[in-house]
């Protein structure tokens, strides 16, 4: 029942804080969130869980190491990307363990508000792009050039695309310029949001299995690419700054160096947990393996993390901070 004690201590601490805060004029937005680990406990690490399985793989492995090797309690919070960033401010979130770019958020929360800290790359290379199933690339060889998309718009018509071709996107919270791209590249397409990675994958699998046309937003690292082939559609090449104004983007997505972000408070503790997240680095293949465990082998994230940790000691050993 240690958790209870922690909670009660937290209440007491928060009460004290209220008084203190009231004394010096008003409550700050992080008032009431007490992060100080209670005595005799390593404390809790609050990991944001963004809604795609690759992210979950990172969190599964880190979570397992934090709990089993370092003795922390891990509190996983299912949050969308932007909301996770807001969590740094309120103290709801300690760490985001796979961040895709988000230069605007970095400016707000790292540079301006100074509530978050960049902990460097996860080792994963991120790619975002438009894809079609391989059979389409075979059948219509020039379809992989974005300039020819309008020619094939009819193929991609659905009940939802209102007479235009459909470009299927994922969760509305994902990093995407697609609506602007369709407009700015003058494509006769309409962006339709499937709502989630799972829906996107389901559609892609169906398109492959039943030879149905599909143009969709997708990304790497992604376990699906290890199972089925999809062809990327080339858009005008990315140049630095071509995506500066989200409304005027007319170029392809850049390659992302996925990185880890933690809250300033968490960083300031310089705890073993912080050290572990700072040291964490692996490859796309590593991540895809864990994603595959979770998605296709019916494992919970916890079990998948455990399995990977048991089988890859050489990879994670160096992440564990020396002090612990």
């Amino acid at each position, binding site marked *: *029942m240690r*958790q*209870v004690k922690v*909670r*009660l201590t*937290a*209440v007491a601490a*928060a*009460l004290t804080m*209220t008084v203190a*805060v009231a004394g010096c*004029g*008003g*409550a*700050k*937005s992080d*008032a*009431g*969130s007490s992060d100080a680990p209670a005595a005799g406990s390593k404390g809790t690490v609050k990991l944001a869980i963004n*809604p795609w399985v690759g992210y979950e793989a990172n969190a599964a492995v880190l979570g397992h190491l934090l709990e089993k090797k370092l003795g922390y309690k891990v509190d996983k*919070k*299912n*949050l*969308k*990307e*932007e*909301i996770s960033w*807001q*969590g740094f*401010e*309120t103290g*709801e979130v300690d760490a985001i363990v796979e961040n895709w770019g988000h230069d*605007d*958020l970095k400016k*707000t929360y790292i540079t301006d508000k100074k509530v978050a800290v960049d902990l460097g790359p996860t080792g994963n290379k991120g790619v975002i792009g438009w894809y079609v199933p391989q059979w389409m690339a075979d059948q219509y060889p020039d379809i992989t050039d974005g300039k020819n998309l309008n020619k094939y718009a009819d193929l991609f018509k*659905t*009940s*939802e695309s*209102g007479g235009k071709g459909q470009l*299927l996107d994922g*969760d*509305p*919270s994902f990093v995407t310029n697609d609506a602007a791209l369709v407009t700015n590249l003058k494509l006769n397409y309409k962006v*339709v*949001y*499937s*709502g*989630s*990675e*799972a*829906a996107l994958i*389901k*559609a892609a699998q169906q398109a492959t299995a039943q030879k149905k046309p599909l143009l969709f937003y997708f990304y790497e690292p992604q376990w699906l690419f290890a199972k089925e082939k999809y062809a990327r559609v080339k858009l005008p090449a990315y140049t630095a700054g071509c995506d500066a104004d*989200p409304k005027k983007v007319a170029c392809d997505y850049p390659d992302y160096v996925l990185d880890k972000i933690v809250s300033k408070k968490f960083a300031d503790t310089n705890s073993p947990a912080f050290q572990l997240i700072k040291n964490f680095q692996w490859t796309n293949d590593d991540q895809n393996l864990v994603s595959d465990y979770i998605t296709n082998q019916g494992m919970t994230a916890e079990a998948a993390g455990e399995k990977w940790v048991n089988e890859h000691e050489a990879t994670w050993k160096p992440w564990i901070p020396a002090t612990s």
Partner: protein
Amino acid sequence: MSATVTDARVPVAAPGEDAPAPGPRRPLPGRRLLVPLLLLVTAGVYLAVRTSAPADGDGAAARFFGELRDWVDANRDTSPLFLYGFNYLRLGVSLLVDAIHGALYGLGWAGLVTAAGALAAVVAGWRTALLAVAGFLSFGVLGLWEESVDTLVLTLSAVLLAVLIGVPLGVLAARVPAVGAALRPVLDVMQIMPTFAYLAPMTLLFLIGSPAATIATLIYAIPPAIRITALGIGEVPAATVEAATALGSTRWQLLGKVRLPLARPTIVLAVNQAIMMALSMVVVTALIDAPGLGQTIVQALERVNVGAAFDAGLAIVVMAVVLDRITTRAAHRAAPTVHRSVRVRAVGPLVALAVVVAVTVLGRMSSWGAEFPAAWRASFAVPVNEATRWVEFHWYDATEALKNAVSAVLLDPIETVLTTTPWWLFLVAVLIFGALASGPRAAVVAGLAVAGVQALGLWQHAMQTLATVLVATVATMVFGVLFGVLGARHDRFARVLRPVLDAAQTMPSFVYLLPAVALFGASRFTAIVAAVIYAVPPVVRLVERGVRDVPATVVEAAVSAGSTPRQLLWKVQLPMARRGLLLAANQGIVMVLAMVVVGGLVGAGALGYDVVAGFAQREDFGRGLAAGFAIVLLGVLLDRLTQGAGRRADHDRLRQPAT
């Protein structure tokens, strides 16, 4: 002999037609002709002036909200409004949540199960206690113990606040006419506001997490608490109050010793309603980082994992049933006509407390008390997922064809008409037809709502959403009337139907998205299917009640005149149930709107997507917030246009499953 029937119908039809416009009313001889004529004219004007409006950009409203957010972000820790206002609220609520969280977790699983049982035993009797124990155990059995307790924590926090604020407000509304009059329209809007629309403003003011979730839930749960309390206080017999006054009671003595005790059963019912509302909202707040079962469901939605959502939905239903039974029984027992022996009343709670303490201490000292025993686990996830996969695989062509047909034949044409209608023409049509259907006042309010949507710069999206809502409402009414009539005419069918409706009404709206997504993928049709499943139960209930409420004497007269069952239905029961049908349409359309908007999560687009994107992407925040307001306005519009017979008082009663 048909005279009986005709005569009986007249008084029912008349008030239904002009209910909102009291006072003498001259018959309009041309009325029969007027409506088709007006329809023709409208159609003509439409054909002449239709245009395809420009796509919604970020209008002035969206930009304003975007800037508002930037300002709030920049000043959250400096502006006195936040330093001394919202942040304190947030802090206070978070302390409350933490305290309740500490208390519930402090009991341990065994202690909490016992506490639920003991509480039920004391306030509701031993049968309910058994139900409570079984229900709480089932959370652990489903492997959702912590999630369920987290949900319970949020629900209890929100309900506690709703009662602390709502009951005094309700008393005030009943006692001070000005307060009552001022509150009524506010509550009206709060009740038709789709849950989804609350979330963005909540994150703006209170950030994310449990406090924001609790406040959002509180806002959703408080209208019935206020309304029903006011009702209860208003129903205290004047004779009793007068007698107490004549003995020299002060105002406070009257309140404390007469009004509140006499209104107690009703107030317990208000608590019951607040709990039911809170439970349905608390799940949605998972979108703004509220812990609990909502998280499980949102996650299941992201993975299209129907089985996982089924387990979580089941846990919510169980929790709702347990809390509902405890509070309804408690309300029943609170009635002044129920007298229990003084000894039981005094000793019962002590015994219950002792048992809870004993079990808690035992649980905390022994190893099995730390965590819910894994050996007791059971889950429906696997069979449900298998069934879903089978249906997906075998029905794919059929579902796809159905989706495409409905989209092409109904949805797209209606959407085209609505989106190519200039907003002013729509406004004029709303004013005219609104005045005919619901009276001039309602029409003006509806008209203002239309103008508001236009001003928010989201006309296109609002019309797309409206098209989806219309199609879903038609489907809802078809199914609702069908089942309602069947239920009213066949007792056996009704008996089977009732528990299904009970469960369906307590299921959080989110859960309905899943089977729909699994069957129909990401589309507007998915939202329609989910909306129909969500809105049919209350419509069925209303229709059934409407038909059953037709006086037995009238039915008897018609039968003795030789009506066939079919004639009885079409010539007597349905016409006389008109009021119930209108009310059902009103209730149905508001619920459909709420669900269609949630459909934004699964590709239904339009306003719902704007809201979802609004709290997912910073640059879309302004538009998301504007969309939230547009949804509210759309709700007001639809409610006013269909309110001909809708009466709020009934609404409150209807949200509650029949017991």
